[in-house]
């Protein structure tokens, strides 16, 4: 058990794939320069895709359509259940159907700026270009987007931008887009082009001669651990927000695929960049298993406040107007309740830390619609937010028309992930990462309605174009078989890990460890981070890890449907990833986007970015468990969107 806070800095990491030249021509240039695989030869190539969310589902379907033999995995019982399905708001696209001045360049600009200048310009520009094609593709698949009476697609505005470019399907845009991808995937499964393995979880990556050649996966029904081989492996396994235990992620969303790939040599970039969404339903007690998001749109008409006095436990209706603190309106008079996500979340945390939070445990602030109801009438409020109010009432048993809603920030999205080049290839040749699993195009903060855009851009358009180049340049790999010594070794390691989990027979459940590390991360690596707090966490995590391997209790055996074993194995990886997140947060001595270091703020308490020191993506190389990783910096160059400090006061 050792604590690490020091690390070595290695060679810089360079994205060698993005062509130079004008940013709007780079994607075309890259596609032209990429080598192609003869259509007749494609079926000889096997590609493994892990995950069936927006990125994985769309990639699997598209690769199969192109003629590749795809072997795809998901831990859910059906590819239709990936957590992309829970995305509510919408998907951005620079269609400019409103003729309101939108353009590819504006979407590019908004995204780089929204990411607080920590994203790669060439990637973001490509994303903006492709956004237009995504809408066409989804409409052709029958995605029932909201439409106007004329039959044309409807759009709405989303946080922080001045155009109306968000396409949506009521509050279920993610569901509808995912079902579109799932149906395309289903068509290819039926055609025999995809070998689908549901209820099968990737547990490790097989790297032979420096190339990703397969995975180790466990059949969650029989418990059988098996190896699968391919010419390239694509990870589309989503983000790692569940490190925090409580998040808006699905219960079984996990970091195992990307963490195991990281351990096998893939660099992990910007792990500390996590997005905390300000409007979630607060937790009600220790039993809480997950958090539910309430659409950001509520902040258009709701007013956020807490009592002025500490420990004021009167019901909201008994607190007179002059004893309420509408703190966002007070601190940010020009943006008021509509400040960006990171600002709103931090402000809520601050008032709760002062002891002025409301509800059980003082972990909540009011989102009050009384003024809106008076101004617009209950009918109008109902028409605009009725479904959200109903959802709130179902979960909390409180009527938001009568008493103000209580909200609190929650972990929602992770901008960090496996480092990838312009081709979405990780530092392991043949291993690609797409969607939330890569360190993405969102920099240090993601704009609303951009996650769906990125997942589908990667899966439908980017990866299928770039993976060709890799497969064409590496055409004749020697076949890898289960007898290969490397395969045997990886398989044995996996089996040993699971056996060990089963054999400890301690006195604590997997959930209890998950909760413990999650609470630690929330406290020290959550909305506001300090040098001392992060050091404390870095000291504590190895202790928890050590205790885990001494006291974990997993009932049953490995060769059966065993949900405790699945859970315990995921917690193993959280306990390592958490450490890297804290180290990354500690090393980045600036505040940017979702990463707020209390030491680095302006005199009026705003995030202070340090471009001269930290204008890079931090890509970490794994060394060994409990030992400091090696930092590789990728310098970010801004030729088109020049960094400025954000201000909302």
């Amino acid at each position: 058990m050792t604590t690490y806070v020091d690390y070595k800095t290695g060679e810089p990491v360079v994205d060698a794939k993005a062509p130079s030249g004008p940013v709007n021509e780079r994607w075309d240039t890259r596609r032209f320069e990429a080598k192609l695989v003869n259509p007749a030869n494609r079926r000889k190539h096997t590609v493994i895709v892990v995950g069936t969310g927006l990125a994985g589902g769309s990639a699997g379907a598209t690769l199969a359509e192109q003629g590749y033999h795809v072997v795809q995995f998901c831990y859910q019982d059906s590819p239709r259940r990936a957590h992309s399905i829970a995305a509510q708001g919408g998907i951005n696209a620079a269609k400019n159907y409103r003729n309101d001045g939108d353009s590819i360049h504006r979407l590019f600009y908004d995204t780089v700026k929204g990411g607080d200048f920590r994203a790669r310009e060439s990637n973001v520009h490509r994303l903006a270009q492709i956004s237009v094609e995504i809408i066409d593709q989804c409409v052709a698949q029958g995605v029932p987007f909201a439409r106007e009476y004329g039959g044309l697609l409807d759009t709405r505005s989303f946080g922080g931008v001045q155009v109306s470019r968000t396409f949506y399907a009521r509050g279920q845009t993610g569901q509808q887009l995912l079902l579109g991808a799932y149906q395309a995937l289903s068509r290819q499964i039926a055609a025999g082009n995809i070998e689908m393995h549901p209820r099968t979880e990737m547990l490790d990556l097989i790297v032979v001669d420096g190339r990703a050649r397969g995975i180790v996966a466990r059949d969650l029904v029989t418990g059988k651990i098996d190896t699968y081989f391919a010419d390239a492996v694509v990870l589309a396994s989503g983000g790692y927000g569940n490190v925090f235990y409580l998040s808006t992620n699905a219960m079984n969303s996990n970091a195992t695929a990307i963490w195991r790939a990281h351990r096998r040599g893939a660099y992990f970039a910007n792990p500390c960049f996590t997005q905390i969404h300000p409007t979630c339903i607060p937790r009600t007690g220790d039993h809480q298993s997950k958090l539910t998001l309430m659409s950001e749109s509520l902040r258009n008409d709701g007013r956020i406040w807490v009592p002025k006095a500490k420990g004021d436990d009167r019901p909201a209706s008994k607190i007179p107007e002059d004893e309420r603190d509408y703190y966002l309106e007070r601190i940010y008079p020009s943006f008021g309740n509509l400040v960006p996500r990171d600002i709103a979340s931090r402000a809520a945390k601050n008032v709760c830390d002062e002891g002025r939070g409301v509800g059980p445990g003082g972990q909540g602030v009011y989102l009050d619609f009384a003024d809106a109801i008076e101004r617009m009438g209950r009918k109008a409020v109902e028409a605009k937010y009725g479904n959200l109010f109903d959802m709130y009432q179902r979960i909390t048993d409180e009527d938001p028309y009568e008493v103000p809603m209580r909200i609190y920030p929650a972990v929602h999205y992770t901008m960090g992930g496996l480092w990838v080049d312009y081709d979405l290839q990780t530092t392991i040749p043949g291993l690609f990462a797409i969607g939330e699993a890569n360190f993405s195009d969102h920099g240090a903060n993601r704009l609303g309605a951009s996650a769906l855009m990125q997942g589908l851009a990667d899966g439908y358009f980017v990866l299928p174009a770039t993976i060709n180049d890799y497969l064409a340049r590496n055409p004749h790999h020697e076949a890898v078989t289960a007898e290969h010594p490397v395969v045997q070794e990886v398989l044995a390691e996996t089996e040993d890990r699971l056996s060990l989990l089963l054999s400890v027979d301690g006195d604590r459940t997997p959930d209890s460890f998950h909760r413990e590390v999650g609470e630690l991360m929330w406290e020290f690596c959550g909305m506001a981070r300090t040098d001392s707090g992060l050091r404390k966490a870095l000291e504590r995590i190895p202790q928890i890890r050590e205790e885990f391997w001494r006291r974990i209790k997993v009932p049953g055996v490995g060769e059966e449907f065993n949900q405790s074993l699945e859970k315990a194995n995921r917690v193993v990886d959280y306990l390592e990833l958490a450490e890297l997140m804290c180290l990354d947060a500690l090393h980045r001595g600036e505040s940017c986007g979702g990463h707020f270091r209390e030491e680095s703020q302006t005199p009026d308490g705003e995030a202070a970015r340090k471009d001269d020191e930290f204008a890079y993506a931090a890509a970490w190389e794994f060394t060994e468990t409990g030992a400091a990783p090696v930092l590789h910096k990728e310098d970010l160059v801004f030729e088109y969107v020049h960094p400025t400090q954000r201000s909302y006061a």
Partner: protein
Amino acid sequence: MKLTLRVWRQKNADAEGAMSTYEVDGISSDMSFLEMLDTLNEELILRGEDPVAFDHDCREGICGACSLVINGDAHGPERTTTCQLHMRSFKDGDTIDIEPWRASAFPVIKDLVVDRSAFDRIIQAGGYITAPTGAAPEAHASPVPKPDADFAFEHAECIGCGACVAACPNGAAMLFTSAKINHLNVLPQGAPERETRVLDMVAQMDEEGFGGCTLAGECATACPKGIPLMSITGMNKEWLRATRKVKR
């Protein structure tokens, strides 16, 4: 509050199952039903017993993974998914029966977990629009009248949980199948495959061993997303139209 749970326990697909009784204490009315089961499982693990297996994932009512029959009702007494059902719907001292979805097309894997892959195969049979990536025309090339778009959306809301099958006295998958057919067949994009879609999906539905429809209406009552019973009528109409048009 304190509750008595009678839970279906079945070691694996081949084993015989039976109801087992458990007592749980200290349940808060703010807990979701699944959090109540989490509490039971934490206790079972510490006692060295096998925790109760159940499917769950998003816990927001949208992924469709959770699937419990609670006191004889698919997803329990409220019109929602099990994960969105809260313990305030129950009283201190209640006895609650928890069983898996029952249908021969949904064999039990373990305890409360069933195999719903039959649904995937119904979709694979035709529940899609053939639109290979890159071949899409401009999105505004074919406008869709708003009522049609709304109709499509209403049916596309299906989360594939299988409550309709669990509630149906005949173990029929008509509501699930019809929801997808109605969603795709009303859209202009779905027109070229309109007939083959309904014929192939219905044939696959039968192939999987689901029962027939007696219009008992239990499916629509159980559906957490409110897919209407009339959806089945629409599918029947599409099917009859297709049998007339397509020579097989």
